[in-house]
């Protein structure tokens, strides 16, 4: 008997990205967290297509001055944001984004996440760490946006 896969059992898809960024000009944490909150909402909108979100979309932004943690589990509740950067100006950092949702395929979440990140490149020069597989080894390559 084939081993049961819980992701298949839940009919869920998932995708995650690691991104490095440099800001184009001075950006404060508040602006960055608003921008990233919009990214999470855009991912939700794209993957749910007017259905309720049954899943979790999250991001963790790390900078030398602190971090921003963003969580979205319900579009009515909105994005929950924890910001430890305060008033500091952000110049660079890295972020991890992850989304998993029921009734959605991995490729659809990937596509939604990449599309949702596109507007961000007006304010940030972002470098996405691409994660491919070659046998047992993981190969990270990079793609730049903005």
């Amino acid at each position, binding site marked *: 008997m084939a*081993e049961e896969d*819980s992701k298949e059992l839940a009919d*869920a898809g998932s995708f*995650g990205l690691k991104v490095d960024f440099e800001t184009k000009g001075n950006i404060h944490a508040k602006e960055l967290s608003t921008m990233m909150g919009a990214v999470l909402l855009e991912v939700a909108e794209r993957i749910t297509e007017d259905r309720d979100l049954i899943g979790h979309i999250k991001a963790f932004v790390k900078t030398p001055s602190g971090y921003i943690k963003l969580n979205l589990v319900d579009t009515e*509740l909105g994005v929950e944001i924890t910001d430890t950067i305060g008033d500091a100006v952000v110049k660079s950092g890295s972020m991890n984004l992850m989304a*998993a949702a*029921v009734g959605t395929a991995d490729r659809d979440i990937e596509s939604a996440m990449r599309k949702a990140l596109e507007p961000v490149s007006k304010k940030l020069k972002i470098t996405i*760490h691409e994660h491919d597989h070659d046998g047992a080894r993981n190969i990270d390559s990079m793609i730049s946006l903005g």
Partner: protein
Amino acid sequence: MMMICQLAGFLGAGKTTLMVRLGKELSKAGKRVAIIVNEVGEVGVDGAVIEAYGLRSVELTEGCICCTLSGSLQNTLRIIAKEFKPDIILIEPTGLALPSKINTIIRTSMVEVDRNVSVALVDAYRAERLFKETKAFFSRQIAGVDVIAINKVDLVPEEKIKEIEDLIRELNPGSRIAHISAKEGEGVRELIEALGVL
């Protein structure tokens, strides 16, 4: 004397928030704590969050430790037990994991464990919707755990919590139920006592 505590629950139930609270409480009490965090995607977020709160963790990504990464979980448990010798290993599986399967994997890992406890978190704000949309999966996620913790009780009225308890009892009649807000810290001390991890 090593203990394992699994914090399970659906996507977005608040597992990482509770993990941080438990990790800090246990460390403060002088316990040697190891944390294993699992993400279904290629890139993890929870490991970075946990580390931001000053806790160290081992992150297993790109699969679920209850099925596709079961071997990785067993190897990680063996390495941690041998090299770190913790008092307690906290495991945060993906939001798509089945706790009963993880318990089986722990039992067959050849790691000497004195106690293995599990808690399933249920998001009070979304419980009814999750029950409606994913009933079969939801039932399996809360089956066979020691405690079912209704989380985010700060977001819903008292009568709603009673309705969620009724739903849970319908699916898992013998379960022990706790009410918590991992974010606000409400009920966490009582949960720690119920789990017997201190």
